[in-house]
């Protein structure tokens, strides 16, 4: 089982869009895959048309109650399962703060529920919090979408510094450019100016595309209704690169 989180300090960078589509590919190609929606906004759950169970809440998640598998929902697609988000996840941080050894909670959770899956993919909320620190420690890889602006590059640096300070291996960190608009001079400049080896950037970027935006209306993964679009092809390539990174 391999686990990774889609994470960024910033919101609106394509975390959810990526998590939704990568999970779709992982399930189709590799077998059982669990997509965990930890963002209280619940966009991932929304795209898969899954409502949270009534009794799921942040307390049981933080405390590691064994009833978590009970909340897992099977998606419309073979081998793809979703642990939906819940509004109470806003308070996850507070709960983690109250628990001893809380830094290991997510890791234990993944080890526990991840047994039946080939991949566990987490759609993480933005900001650096106790919860995100937990996620960094708990997953095998942290995948960071970066919109090509100098400001975004700076937030990536902040994240790298945080990893260093907390003694979390930088090898876990994988970045890629997201929502790239080739018509924008700035985007071109940033993408082309990146030294791949230095900043953990994968040699692949996801274009800005209205096809992706349409997901909000269709409530389906892009790869399901438009597998041929440029953006869909880019997700395929991103997944191939990630798989390669996971095994090396």
């Amino acid at each position, binding site marked *: 089982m391999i686990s990774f989180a889609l994470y960024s300090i910033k919101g609106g960078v394509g975390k959810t869009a990526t998590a939704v589509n990568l999970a779709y590919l992982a399930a189709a190609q590799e077998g059982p895959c669990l997509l965990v929606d930890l963002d209280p906004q619940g966009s991932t759950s929304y795209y*898969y*048309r899954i*409502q949270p169970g009534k009794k799921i809440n942040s307390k049981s998640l933080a405390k590691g109650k064994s009833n978590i598998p009970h*909340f*897992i*929902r*099977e998606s419309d697609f073979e081998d793809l399962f979703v642990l939906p988000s819940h509004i109470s996840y806003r308070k996850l941080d507070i709960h983690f703060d109250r628990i001893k050894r809380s830094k290991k909670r997510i890791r234990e959770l993944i080890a526990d529920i991840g047994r039946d899956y080939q991949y566990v993919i987490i759609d993480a909320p933005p900001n650096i919090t106790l919860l995100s620190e937990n996620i960094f420690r708990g997953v095998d890889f942290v995948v960071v979408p970066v919109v090509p602006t100098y400001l975004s590059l700076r937030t990536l640096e902040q994240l790298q510094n945080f990893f260093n300070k907390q003694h979390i291996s930088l090898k876990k960190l994988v970045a890629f450019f997201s929502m790239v608009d080739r018509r924008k001079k700035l985007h071109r400049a940033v993408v082309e100016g990146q030294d791949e080896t230095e900043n953990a950037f994968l040699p692949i970027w996801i274009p800005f595309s209205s096809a992706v935006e349409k997901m909000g209306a269709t409530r389906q993964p892009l790869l399901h209704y438009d597998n041929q679009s440029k953006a869909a092809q880019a997700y395929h390539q991103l997944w191939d690169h990630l798989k390669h990174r996971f095994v090396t």
Partner: protein
Amino acid sequence: MYTIAGFQVNDAQTIDQHVNQLKKYFIIRGGEERQETWKLSDTFDWRLYNRNLILKRIHHHLALVSLDNSKFDIRQSIQKDIRYVWDLPDGKLKQQLWSILEERALLDIVVDDVRVKTIVVLNELGKTVTRLSIHRFQPKMNITALPESYILVHALQGYKDESDQIVDQLKTQGLHQLTSSLYAYRLRNSDREPGLYSTKVNVSLSDDLPSVEAMRRIFQFLLQIMKENKQGIIEDIDTEFLHDFRVSLRRTRAGLSQVKGLYNDPLTRHFKDQLKKLQQLSNRLRDLDVYLLSKKEFARMLVPDLRPYIDHLFGRLTAEREAEYQRVMHLLQSDEYQNILTTWEQFVNKEYTVEELGINAGKPCKTLAMERIYKSYRKIIKMGKRITDDTPDADIHQLRIDCKKLRYLMEFFYSLFPQKEMNALSKHVKKLQDYLGKYNDYSVQQTFLKKYLDEHHDRSKTSYYTAAIIGGLLEHLYHEQKTLRSAFHSIFRDFSDKSYQKQFNRLFKL
């Protein structure tokens, strides 16, 4: 997704009506229809079926599934046809199947052409909450007959309540619910009755039945097994067809020699000789089969440096086995050998004249059974007591043969004695038999290897390696056998324990 219920639709033309009725209460979307070929496979001796499992193959997808509606399901996609477990790619399925099937081949039990239509049930968000699949099996023989049709209900994890509602609705619509999985229903279309095969003698006798009649039934049973396995031997499907054939033949011969005086002497001798000839025909073939199956074990006996070279030896053995198989098949299908079994069958089924019968023919079978079992048991006790550390191997082998005969006798007449005690005593005898069997295997293997060494001494490099391998194996086998020998006394002490002697006396002493 897992199947929670199945329904049989007697009249295929009503399927649409049933679906339309569901539409009154649920949001239903019709899916596409596709053609599938289903292959359900098992071994000749029903190893999967008897564990309530079956191997299902649909195109490139293989799955080990349960015959009741449980979630158990191990899947694997495959590129080519699978006949033996070792043809499978490594993984969970291979591991699980190996522990059940071992070297037995998979046979297609049922091959079905089926049209499958999937229908989804959605909730108010448009999320799929249940799937239905409609299966129409193309009739094989009678083209004009209506296809057998079924509706299966599949639940999605987290949406069990929604599926239960569908199941309830279909019940109200008067459909007949299946009591086991659809696979179990399809297996009934097989030519053979599922699950019915065992080489274990299963003949129930009554105490006063004349011995010749009792043995007639046992011989008939054994003949049946031999006949059932014949095609598998000829097609060389796997090694166990020959094995089962030979075991039944050996049991038959033991019946002739151990249950004395059924027929007159010349007749008994004639059939004993004939059946022995038939058995000997495949001795070497079976030996080679056993060696080839135990390659891994042999490899483990060698020092690691020699292990890779074991392929030389086994390559040759494989070639030899092929040649031997051709030889045996040729003879087995010749008139001379065919006649052995056909005349034996005719004889087993005929009305006997007084002259043909022997002195024990009319004796009540329980009396004869007690006499023979008791005598056979006493003989083993007597022989075993005489064995010391200096006794030659040949005597130990004789003891093994006698032990086997006792086991066969107890199997033949199992139904005449209290079951519980027979089970316990059989187990008791088997312990000694297993020990002696293992001891014998070591001897046979050493003899085989020595003979092999004598017969293959060209000067090729391969021969040198093979010789080194054989040397390594002989050394190992020799020491193992010696260790085993030193355990004889404690094994035999257990076997001849007074409490067991008493039990034997009580059951079998007249």
